[in-house]
């Protein structure tokens, strides 16, 4: 299947009595930036966590490249190939910014410490955080911490990056610097899957926007299609009614 990085087929998950994912399917090609939007509690985070099996899905299949990974026994090896960025950064509290980026290289990729240090430094520079290499997480602003956490994932040289609302825990004035980094990544050809409601950002990077509700993908289209649908006034039934209703609530 050549340039398909990720293929998801009928992914389902329930917690107790609650069906959180009800058959989610989609495909991500190399260089795609797919963005998931949707109301709170629809299962967007659960979906991302099922992809790298931080949460075990109940049924459905996920292929990373040519490997079916929902049953892979070497889950650590699979996770290495997918970067994950969390809403609350989850930087390692006892390590400096540099240490945070370095530790995966040393402990997981078994890179010699000296090489790892230089490499980690260049990853920090990529997100504009090299000047803060010696700072501990508690000494960083939210935006800075999130950029370090992005560098930590990028350093592992993943095939795809998963972002779960990377700016929603940030003060508004700090979201810009993180989105800027993500935009640069996207235009650099990084394959990514993003949950975000920063619509200006979403429209500028998304190759496709997927609107989720109640554990399924309800509507999906390119930013262009969604906007066009919004603007057209032909009286024809609209294709993205629910997406637009959601976006209106978001604005209001």
């Amino acid at each position, binding site marked *: 299947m050549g340039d398909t990085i990720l293929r998801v087929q009928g992914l389902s998950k329930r917690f107790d009595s609650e069906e959180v994912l009800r058959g989610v399917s989609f495909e991500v090609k190399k260089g795609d930036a797919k963005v998931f939007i949707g109301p709170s509690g629809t299962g967007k985070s659960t979906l991302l966590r099922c992809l*790298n099996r*931080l949460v075990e899905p109940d049924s459905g299949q996920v292929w990373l490249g040519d490997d079916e990974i929902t049953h892979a026994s070497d889950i*650590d*090896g*699979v*996770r*290495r190939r*997918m970067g*994950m960025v*969390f809403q*609350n950064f*989850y*930087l*390692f*509290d*006892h390590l400096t910014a540099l240490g945070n980026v370095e*530790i*995966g290289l040393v*402990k*997981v990729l078994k890179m010699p410490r000296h090489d790892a240090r230089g490499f980690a430094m260049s990853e920090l520079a990529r997100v504009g955080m090299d000047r803060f290499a010696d700072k*501990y*997480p*508690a*000494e960083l602003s939210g935006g800075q911490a999130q950029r370090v*956490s992005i560098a*930590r*994932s990028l350093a*592992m040289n993943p095939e795809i990056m998963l972002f779960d609302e990377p700016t929603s825990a940030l003060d508004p004035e700090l979201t810009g610097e993180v989105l800027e980094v993500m935009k640069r990544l996207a235009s650099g050809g990084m394959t990514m899957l993003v949950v975000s409601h920063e619509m200006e950002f979403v429209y500028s990077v998304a190759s496709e926007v997927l609107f989720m509700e109640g554990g399924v993908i309800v509507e999906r289209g390119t930013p262009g299609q969604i906007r066009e649908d919004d603007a057209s006034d032909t009286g024809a039934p609209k294709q993205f009614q629910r997406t637009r209703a959601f976006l209106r609530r978001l604005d209001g």
Partner: protein
Amino acid sequence: MDDALRYVIEDLSAPLLHGAAASLQLIVCSVPFGLMLGFAVAVGWVYGNRAVSALCKAYVLLVKGTPLLILLFVIYFCLPSLGLTLSPFAASVTGFIMCNGAYNSEYIRGAILSVRSGQLIAARSLGMGRFQAIVSIVLPQAARRALPGCSNEVIYLIKYSSLAYILSFIELTGAGKMAATRSFRFTLVFSVVGLVYLTMVTLASLFFMWLEKKLAIPGFETTRD
């Protein structure tokens, strides 16, 4: 007074120095293993499967619920009937390690539980195995939070190491007792012995204060949610 001073310098100092050295030997042999046992039991309790976790709980309960002296008697007097004879020194160190380890594990367990849950999630999503993530991410953080408690345990250990004398291992307290019995200067001898313990405890406290400072991370103690 002159007489007392001369007695301390000429007659008491040698046996007490010997005794203090023996006490130090007990302490130095017990502390590292007590610490390791503490980590092992805490990790087993928190992360082990049902059987391991239950075993760790039972161990802590048993040691916490038994006077150390009784534990020492069991090790020294009862194990030989099972074919395991330990010297007074080995029996004492074994008892101290068991006791120290159990209490350390309580501090370490509490500290492990205080590590924010996202830390392990982030580590696993980088591709670290569970054991690796615990060792590289959780334990370094837990160790810092457990340090004040564990250093207190070392200080207790310095003092309860005197129980070895009851198993006829002559350490500081035992040496003092023998000297006092010979000279009948009980008040003087035990005052000096007390001073030696006080000195050891003070030095240990200073060391741990230094260590806490050295291991401190800006903002770390307050990062909890």
